[in-house]
């Protein structure tokens, strides 16, 4: 071993020289450093090299030895104990990995470094922080251990009661204060009223307050003013726009869909459905169930079909039907994988698609679970359909089906038949028939088309020796065979369509009604409700605070991070369910807390002990995403077009003055402005936006015609050149942009910048003003919310 490698190892190993004292420790009493050493170094070795034969899942269990729990590891196997704590030389485990006598793993020796880690571990007394059962990936999904994972189990929370608590306003605060005190931190003072209204406004509707709104709120000292403001914002239609955009990130919404189907539908109707339904505060259970299965729900009519865009707008890929069937099936399987992924991560915070080829490596999700959900989605075909009932839809569907079949057979005939005059005539006849159907009223119906899913299963079948066909079987749902190792050509056992085993209470319940989409939704909001509620509550929390209580919002499995405040998350989620899954209730509860109302000012003590603000000792200042930033610029210049919904527009057009969420999102070529400002890839679920700061973004702020235009408009709004004195104009600018007075320094800076041009030179004065206002628009104060 080279000295350098040894040094690297020593860095990793706990070297506090207390090994002897630690031998007798029981779980829970292990020094944190040793526990970390076990988790970082030892456990991964066990998982990688030993669990295949020595864990609860091993069939058969080799040598009667299990290494997946602390107790079993200590107990040993048929050959007796394998560890003598503190004595690597006497431990069978060490002999085995050194291939000294017995050889383990049998066909592959561990690296010297790995062996060294195990030796070091044993010599430390084999500190083992594992409590309870084996790791979740090693247990059956329906076992009590799997179900006891924090994200799956029933809500558990007792509200702390901090002593001498004059700070808390609601239950959220008691959890926060409790933890802050444990780390000897105090919360920050409440922010001033101007800050609060700006924060609330950007948070709830994605727009800033007007100066008049700020004045009114600052002046309103009557009790309940804050609550009234929250209600007013929640009632604004802009609420649905702002929070709708948040949802569309999860749903990987796009306006333009490169793909096989050649859709002519209007994707934006799904976007508008989201906005409308959020504004109605339908309840998250209802909001989700309708996106999965509104066509199967009795009391929602055909006018709700746009909800199905969640799956209807799934990415699809070109399928060359002349290729080997395995390739076509693989493409379909890839599409399915994405659908399972967006379902799992969006609603359940689980990486289900990891189970396509094998049981999940880390979470109690089986290969069967993947195909159980997959069957539901393979029985739900994405399709363009009219925003109307079956009476309108079925004849259109029939006509389209005919055209599709005729087109395919025409292509085949042209390929196979010689071009004799008789054959040419036949081709012509078929072409004419296609044209006739296309012209028929049903086919060319003017009905509004939406992108939805329908009850039809998807099958790739051979069509003669050299071709394949994709068949959609209406009203015939299908269960899927497991694809062995993910290979769609290798059939494993058939798996009935059903919900995830680990989340199902009692016996598995195969779905009976059609594809099972509605039953799936029902299962999520009954058996699966603690997880589903935790996931959405955490997402909403994240939007308000910049970071979730769980910082991996789309991974609540064992590879995700655990919640910083588990009790708080559970308490809030439980109450959210009791309050009929009302998102607006959740916003009220969160914004009412003292935690939310804290000042965002940095504090050295907090910065030193908790720089990431996990403990919430202040409100984390937030940089506006591109949508509210651009919208706010349009808003302050009085040019924001506040109409709601409709077809998408072009963000590259500097005159486009609608809210940014209406800019066209193209999966293939994303708008430059969106791309440079951290907009997520619209082809896949986005767990969260990842803010970056790049010079290219600043070039947009400095040089884009959009900013020039806003600066000019702002000058007009302020009335530059109307004879008012210069400081008065500066005051107006600060009032409109920041809803405050400039400080003396700021006033002086502004005056210095603006003065020095001849009073008569109107052009030059206008130019100076434009530069000045441009700088204010590009400033950090305009981009960051305290």
């Amino acid at each position, binding site marked *: 071993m080279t000295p350098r490698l040894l040094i690297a190892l020593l*860095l990793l190993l706990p070297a506090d020289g207390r090994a002897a004292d630690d031998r007798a420790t029981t779980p829970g009493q292990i020094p944190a450093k040793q526990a970390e050493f076990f988790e970082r170094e030892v456990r991964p070795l066990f998982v990688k090299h030993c669990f295949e034969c020595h864990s609860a899942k091993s069939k058969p269990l080799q040598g009667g030895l299990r290494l997946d729990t602390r107790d079993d590891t200590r107990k040993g196997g048929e050959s007796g104990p394998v560890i003598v704590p503190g004595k690597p030389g006497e431990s069978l485990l060490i002999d085995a990995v050194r291939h000294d006598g017995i050889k383990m793993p049998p066909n592959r020796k561990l690296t010297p470094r790995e062996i060294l880690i195990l030796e070091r571990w044993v010599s430390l007394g084999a500190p083992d922080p594992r409590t309870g059962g084996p790791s979740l990936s090693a247990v059956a999904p329906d076992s009590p251990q799997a179900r006891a994972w924090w994200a799956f189990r029933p809500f558990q929370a007792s509200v702390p009661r901090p002593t001498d608590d004059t700070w808390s306003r609601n239950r959220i605060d008691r959890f926060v204060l409790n933890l802050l005190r444990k780390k000897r931190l105090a919360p920050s003072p409440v922010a001033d009223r101007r800050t609060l209204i700006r924060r609330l406004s950007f948070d709830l509707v994605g727009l800033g307050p007007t100066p008049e709104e700020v004045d009114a709120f600052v002046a309103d000292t009557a009790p309940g003013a804050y609550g009234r403001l929250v209600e007013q914002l929640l009632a604004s239609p802009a609420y649905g726009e702002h929070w709708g955009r948040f949802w569309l990130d999860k749903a990987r919404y796009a306006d333009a869909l490169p793909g096989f189907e050649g859709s002519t539908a209007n994707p934006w109707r799904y976007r508008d459905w989201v906005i409308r339904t959020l504004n109605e505060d339908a309840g998250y259970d209802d909001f989700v169930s309708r996106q999965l299965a509104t066509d199967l729900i009795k009391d929602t009519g055909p006018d709700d079909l746009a909800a199905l865009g969640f799956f209807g707008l799934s990415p699809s890929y070109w399928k060359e039907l002349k290729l080997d069937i395995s390739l076509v099936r693989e493409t379909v399987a890839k599409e399915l994988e994405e659908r399972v992924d967006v379902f799992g991560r969006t609603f359940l915070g689980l990486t289900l698609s990891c189970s396509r080829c094998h049981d999940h490596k880390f979470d109690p999700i089986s290969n069967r679970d993947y195909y159980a959900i997959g069957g539901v989605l393979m029985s739900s075909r994405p399709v363009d359909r009219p925003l109307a009932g079956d009476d309108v839809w079925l004849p259109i569907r029939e006509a389209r089906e005919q055209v599709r079949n005729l087109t395919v057979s025409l292509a085949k005939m042209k390929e196979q038949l010689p071009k004799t005059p008789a054959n040419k005539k036949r081709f012509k006849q078929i072409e004419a028939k296609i044209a006739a159907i296309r012209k028929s009223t049903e086919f060319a119906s003017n009905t509004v088309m939406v992108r939805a899913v329908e009850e039809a299963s998807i099958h790739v079948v051979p069509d003669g020796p050299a071709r394949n066909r994709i068949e959609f079987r209406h009203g015939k749902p299908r269960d899927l065979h497991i694809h062995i190792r993910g290979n769609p050509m290798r059939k494993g056992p058939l798996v009935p369509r059903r919900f995830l085993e680990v989340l199902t209470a009692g016996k598995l319940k195969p779905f009976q009604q059609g594809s099972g989409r509605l039953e799936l939704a029902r299962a999520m909001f009954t058996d699966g409700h603690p997880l589903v509620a935790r996931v959405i509550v955490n997402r909403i929390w994240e939007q308000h605070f910049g970071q979730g209580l769980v910082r991996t919002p789309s991974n609540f499995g064992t590879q995700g991070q655990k919640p910083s405040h588990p009790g708080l998350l559970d308490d809030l989620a439980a109450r959210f369910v009791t309050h009929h899954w009302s998102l607006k209730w959740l916003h009220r509860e969160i914004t009412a807390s003292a935690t939310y109302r804290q000042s965002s000012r940095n504090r050295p003590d907090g910065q030193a002990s908790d720089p990431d603000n996990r403990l919430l000792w202040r409100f984390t200042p937030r940089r506006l995403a591109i949508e509210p930033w651009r919208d706010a610029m349009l808003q302050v210049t009085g040019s924001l077009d506040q109409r709601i919904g409709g077809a998408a527009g072009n963000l590259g057009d500097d005159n486009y003055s609608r809210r940014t969420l209406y800019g066209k999102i193209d999966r293939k070529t994303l708008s430059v402005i969106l791309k440079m400002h951290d907009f997520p890839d619209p082809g896949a679920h986005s767990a969260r936006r990842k803010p*970056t700061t790049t010079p290219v973004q600043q*070039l*947009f702020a400095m040089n884009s015609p959009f900013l020039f235009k806003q600066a000019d408009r702002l000058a007009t709004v302020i009335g530059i050149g109307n004879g008012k004195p210069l400081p008065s104009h500066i005051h107006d600018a600060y009032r409109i942009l920041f809803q405050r007075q400039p400080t003396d320094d700021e006033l002086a800076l502004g005056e210095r910048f603006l003065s020095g041009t001849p009073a008569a030179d109107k052009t030059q004065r206008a130019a100076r003003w434009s*530069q000045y206002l441009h*700088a204010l628009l590009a400033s*950090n104060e305009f981009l960051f919310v305290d």
Partner: protein
Amino acid sequence: MILDAPQATTHRLDPLSRRAMIGRLGGGLGATGVASALSADQSLSHYGGKARRVIQLFMNGGPYQGDLFDPKPALKKFEGQRPPGATLRTERITAGLLPSIRKFAPRGNSGVVVSDLLPEISRVIDDICVLKGCHSDNPNHNPAMFLMNCGALTSAVPSVGSWVSYGLGSENRNLPSYVVLATGYPVEAPLTWTSAFLPNHHQGTHINHSNLAPEKIIPFLRNARYDRNVQRRQLDLLGQLNRKHLENRGGGDRLASRIQSMETAFRMQFEATDAFNLEQESKQTRDAYGTGKFANGCLLARRVCERGVRYVQLYYDGGQPWDTHNNHNQRMVTLTRNVDRPIASLIADLKQRGLLEDTLVVWGGEFGRTPVSENGNGRDHNHHGFSMWMAGGGVRGGMTYGETDDFGFKAVTDKVHVHDVHATMLHLLGIDHTQLTYRYAGRDFRLTDVYGRVVSEILV
């Protein structure tokens, strides 16, 4: 170029002042309690690096080693068969062995064997060290791209370029220290050049050089309204306002970072216009590099390196063009024709300008391809064994290191894992890969995680 504003003068740091380096390392080492172990001598002993910058030529999609540097006559003998050793698992279903149709010969004074697909690179082979025994961990593009770019199979950690930028800083404050030239997004981009938890400005700045008008390369690069003096005056005002704002809030990384970023953007307008203006090159040089997106990329790589950019990553193109699952032979001809001459000219040009000795050039994909066929005329991904090469920056030229098995499927002798490639790159830059750490989420992260071996056999 020297700009007039004082903030904008071209600024060259010392190769790496010890204080700066220790400052950077301090957080991590202090936290593990061994800061005292890093005596002055020890820390400085790591900094004899020959390379000051890196140009990474990324053949995204995965080039087939057996057509370029790693001939395997045994393939002919077992053509169409799957003898033992030819049945390794890769991403897709494969068939029997498919011999390469290329012709190989020893080249240069060193006699390193190169195929007829690379006649121009053959001419500079004496400057190149081919690593024939490379291997990676995963046959899928996405994790393999992450591993090659970030040293981990997922995206949550910083890219190599970001680590280098973090470790060595920038030699030119007017340009980003880490530039990514790509005429489209490769798989998993832009996460492949993420700075993850490292400070934001170490993230790769992506430049799409498919259109060479500077304002097309970098959107909004040109200010159509103000000249430089007006803009400078405006930015001074903005900087003052932003700094007051920052002070009033007791500081904040992201606020400070944007202030700095604004200044970089200002300088970038002029420096970038200049750096990306290939019209300034002589006809002779342009002819030598040839035409096409990749050729322009190579020339741009040299131009930005000359101007002190620390790490340049040049992708062949967007997507995964080297991913020859079908029509492999045909596509290899086009692919290699597009890179052969530009790369050879880049090496020769760097050498002629005296830049090759302190510029490390790294060539490779995220993995290689199989010696067995897929679909009859294609080749599947192969992470078990593939070739990469390095040149300049303290690497011994005219040698090969490592071998694959008889079929070129799996690395067998002198294997070089991706982590080893990273460790070696850092070493050449004067960084000990075990000591460049960053404390995040409760642990010390490093590019090579707990792995990595410096391949000292290839050092000068």
